């Protein structure tokens, strides 16, 4: 028997003893139905209790509501379980707020830890092109839930960086397959910019943003109609992107000067900006890296 069911049994039994003398109440009935295996009916009853002023100021109602929804979500796929896990989380939080004397902290914490862990796993599992918005939604619940777990700010920042980097990284794969995918481009910019908001010295985000802007400029040149000799406007547009890319690639190179792609990008940008001295410098650095003595 797993630990949750064990705890539920103990609480259920206690509740039964208390309520025997008073006659069976609806919460007790919901627990019995749940124990009998009819989870949907149990949820229907506990939902009514949660909306009933006779019960909804008690810890038990919210605890069981959280517990039932948590168990229901276990039977569902990641995509469909999300809403039920959120109801479970919010119910447990409500239960905690009603447990002024902290008498049930152990059960509450156990369920909260489980849900926090699930939010983390779900957010990671949904990092894909179709479900990324759900992933972000769940990740925000993960961060909220972490506040109850005494996680320090530094750790939360790092988790944020990891999540946004993973999201940006997924969109890079999408964008690499189709450079006309505007959504993927926007998401790369959005996620890595968010990383730099947290840590402006993040090497990966500086590199990815620099290369994304640089590549966009190059793509403008490559998408130009080959039979059209008038390149004026597209060269201007490409230059605009190169200028945006430059500080990110310079920073990336400052953090890690052993990355050939960064040096190549910098050399090409300075070439486009007609800065021979800087172009030659980065070309030489690139050659040194490629052909060490």
């Amino acid at each position, binding site marked *: 028997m797993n630990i949750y069911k064990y705890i539920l049994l103990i609480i259920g039994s206690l509740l039964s003893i208390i309520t025997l003398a008073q006659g069976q109440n609806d919460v007790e009935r919901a627990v019995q139905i749940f124990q009998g295996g009819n989870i949907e009916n149990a949820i229907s009853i506990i939902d009514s209790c949660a909306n009933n002023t006779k019960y909804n100021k008690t810890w038990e109602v919210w605890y069981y509501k959280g517990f039932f929804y948590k168990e229901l979500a276990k039977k569902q796929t990641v995509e469909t379980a999300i809403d039920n896990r959120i109801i479970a989380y919010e119910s447990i939080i409500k239960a905690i707020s009603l447990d002024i004397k902290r008498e049930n902290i152990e059960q509450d914490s156990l369920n909260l*830890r489980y849900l*926090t*862990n699930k939010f*983390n*796993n779900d*957010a*990671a599992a949904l*990092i894909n092109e179709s479900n990324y918005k759900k992933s972000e939604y769940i990740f925000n619940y993960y961060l909220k839930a*972490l506040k109850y*777990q005494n*996680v320090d700010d530094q*750790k939360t920042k790092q*988790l944020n*960086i*990891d*999540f946004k*980097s*993973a999201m940006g*990284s*997924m969109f*890079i*794969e999408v*964008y*690499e397959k189709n450079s006309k995918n505007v959504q993927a481009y926007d998401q790369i910019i959005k996620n890595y910019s968010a990383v730099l908001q947290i840590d402006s010295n993040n090497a*990966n985000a500086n*590199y*990815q943003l620099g*290369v*994304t802007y*640089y*590549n966009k*400029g*190059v*793509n403008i*040149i*490559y998408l*130009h109609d*080959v*039979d*059209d*000799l*008038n*390149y*004026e406007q597209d*060269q*201007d547009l*490409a*230059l605009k992107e190169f200028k945006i890319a430059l500080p990110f690639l310079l920073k990336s190179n400052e953090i890690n000067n052993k990355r050939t*792609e*960064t040096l*190549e*990008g910098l050399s*090409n940008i300075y*070439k*486009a*900006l*007609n800065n021979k001295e800087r172009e030659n410098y980065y070309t030489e650095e690139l050659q040194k890296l490629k052909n060490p003595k």
Partner: protein
Amino acid sequence: MLFGAFVPVEKPMLGIRPDPQQRVKAVFLYNFSKYFEWPKANKNNMFIIGVLDNPRLCAELTTITQNRKVGVLNIVIKNFKTIQEINKCNIVFIPEESNINVSNVLAIVKPFNGLVVTERQNGVSQGAVVNFVIKENKLKFELSKSNAKKASLKVSQSLTSLAINVD
């Protein structure tokens, strides 16, 4: 586990795209084929664009001229290591990094009414018909109608309007 589990953050890395200026040069060189009137004597069964030692530019030219023709002629791209290899070219490009004397190339292509394109200071005064220059950070080209006349090449008016420093 409460923390982490978000896929490796270092991969994948975006690959850097190649130097775009090579593409602009390739598009210019290809389009020049449409803006000159090529003497009939020049017309063998293919239109040759030769480049002096720049395989990267040749690769771009090969890509953009695939399935394209100049009139009825198939386009052939050739990379020459030395000027001795230049033969029956319609267009010859001498890149910036090449220190080859323009007049030597002119002497070779003259019998075939070849168009010489350079990328250097005073390229036109050295005899090139077209010379690539960077102006306002953009690749543009100078055009010498008098050098074109010497090579028996007739320049279209629309090319003149796109060029800078036309003589």
